[in-house]
């Protein structure tokens, strides 16, 4: 996933925790697809219904803090979110996202200079273009990009072992 893509953004604040992303109450649901309508519900109950595949989330500091529940990045991916761009990510969420093939990008400046509904262009590992401005972004190591491109760690392991 190094090709450019564009997407409409949803802007969230600092410290978006995993209980916000998917509350405990819904973890017993049978599948991540069943959980989708409840994503972000403590904060913005209407948000999950408004997100369309290909959208991008822009967050503040410490995105994904809290529990190690892997359903958090899974449900965001299931909603069709293309990537999350935040000022920083909590570490367990970072690993879990990579392991589920969800692209995360750290960018300090973007959050304060865009508004919800803007369309931005992202070239992973290179640059974000928004409202006529460009933001340089770091690239992830090749082994992590391999996992993301495969759709997650389990899929990457299967691919490495020659399984489909």
């Amino acid at each position, binding site marked *: 996933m190094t090709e450019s893509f564009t997407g409409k953004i949803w802007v969230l604040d600092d410290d978006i925790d995993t209980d916000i992303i998917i509350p405990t109450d819904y973890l017993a649901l049978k599948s991540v697809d069943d959980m989708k309508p409840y994503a972000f519900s*403590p904060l913005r109950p209407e948000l999950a219904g408004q997100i369309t595949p290909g959208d991008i989330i822009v967050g503040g500091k410490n995105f994904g803090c809290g*529990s*190690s*529940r892997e359903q958090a990045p899974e449900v965001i991916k299931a909603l069709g979110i293309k990537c999350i761009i935040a000022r920083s990510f909590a570490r*367990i969420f970072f690993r879990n996202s990579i392991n589920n093939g969800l692209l995360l990008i750290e960018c300090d400046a973007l959050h304060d200079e865009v508004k919800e509904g803007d369309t931005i262009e992202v070239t992973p590992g290179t640059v974000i273009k928004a409202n006529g401005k460009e933001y340089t972004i770091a690239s992830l190591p090749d082994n992590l990009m391999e996992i993301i491109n495969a759709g997650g760690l389990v899929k990457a392991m299967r691919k490495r072992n020659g399984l489909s």
Partner: protein
Amino acid sequence: MGMTMAEKIIACAAGVKEAHAGDIHTVELDRLMSNDGTTHLTIDMYNKLKNPQIKDVNKLVWIVDHNIPSDSPKTAASHKKMRDFARENKITFYEGEGVCHQVMMENHVRPGELIFGADSHTCAYGALGAFGTGVGCTDYLYAMVTGTSWLLVPETIRFNLHGKLNKGVYARDLILTIIGRISANGANYKAMEFAGDGLASLSMADRISICNLCVEAGAKTALMEVDDVAMDYLKAHGREPKALFTSDEDAVFAQVFDIDLGEIEPIVAKPHFVDSVVPAKECLGVKIDEAFLGSCNNGRLEDLRVGAEIIKGKKVAEGVRFLVVPASQTIYKEALKEGLLDIFMEAGAIIMNPNCSVCWGSCQGVIGEGETLISTGTRNFKGRAGHRDSFVYLASAATVTASAIKGEIALA
């Protein structure tokens, strides 16, 4: 160049002489803990692998604690999946014996070990000088199948503790103060190491409480030097260290804080962030609907003693539910023997079986719309304990118990 405790443990687990912050190493894990929060997902993924095998089943510990006893056919099915898989594969399995981290401290953790837990509060194991870190179920699966994982060696923030906590001030107040000072991501990707002459005055219960909460500052792990207090605990539980490490004098720390324990005061973390801390006296009078004494953070015998002493001969305020949840069966039995549970029951508290309870907003004790909980649990995120429009304040066992008696936030 000297090494920190975290660097030494990773070097040992990676089989290399030296490891330094920023290096990435493939490490061999000593132990792998998973609970009913996500184990069913791990099993589903495991079953999708071709001819999967567990690398070393002796390293696995599975614990049902989040929803025990089950509250619905769905959780019962999830537990059954975990129970059957554990039995079939001869995995060490606990069900209802306590909150996972307490069970691990009582039965498994050894100094110098590198432990993955599919639970964010795995950093608690640092109280015994072990590098515990929380991972998701995919990382857990990889470690379960290969016995290894990759780790970025973290920088370390060192906290030198001096003196003693004043009477009426607890480890919980100390760690909330620290989290308030460095913020909810102040230790993101980093290790938090505690040392100094003040450590000797802290009990194992205090130490577990401190290390346990470090993930609320974003920490990858928490570590404490193993001293006589830790060694006594280890021996009393019939275990020996894997290895004893301390940070070298010329180890490089990202930051160093000196903390005078005598300056710490009772603290409350206000809704909805763990780092929204204020002196408890600034919250006096806030009406509460429920109080919770328990969790992997503060459900130990020492916490129950503190609460029992405060509530002895008094009553829980009218209209308030006071939940008391010992963190393990061992603690439960000790509390029974000491008469602590009698005291709580006389006061009108509800005693529950060891589980994660309302701390993670599961089967028992969840709060409704507009309600307020004061809790010794780990988190106060919006909606964490029940309805999305509810409020959680975090505090010590003493402040929680005093508040249960008064029906509003109060000091003991």
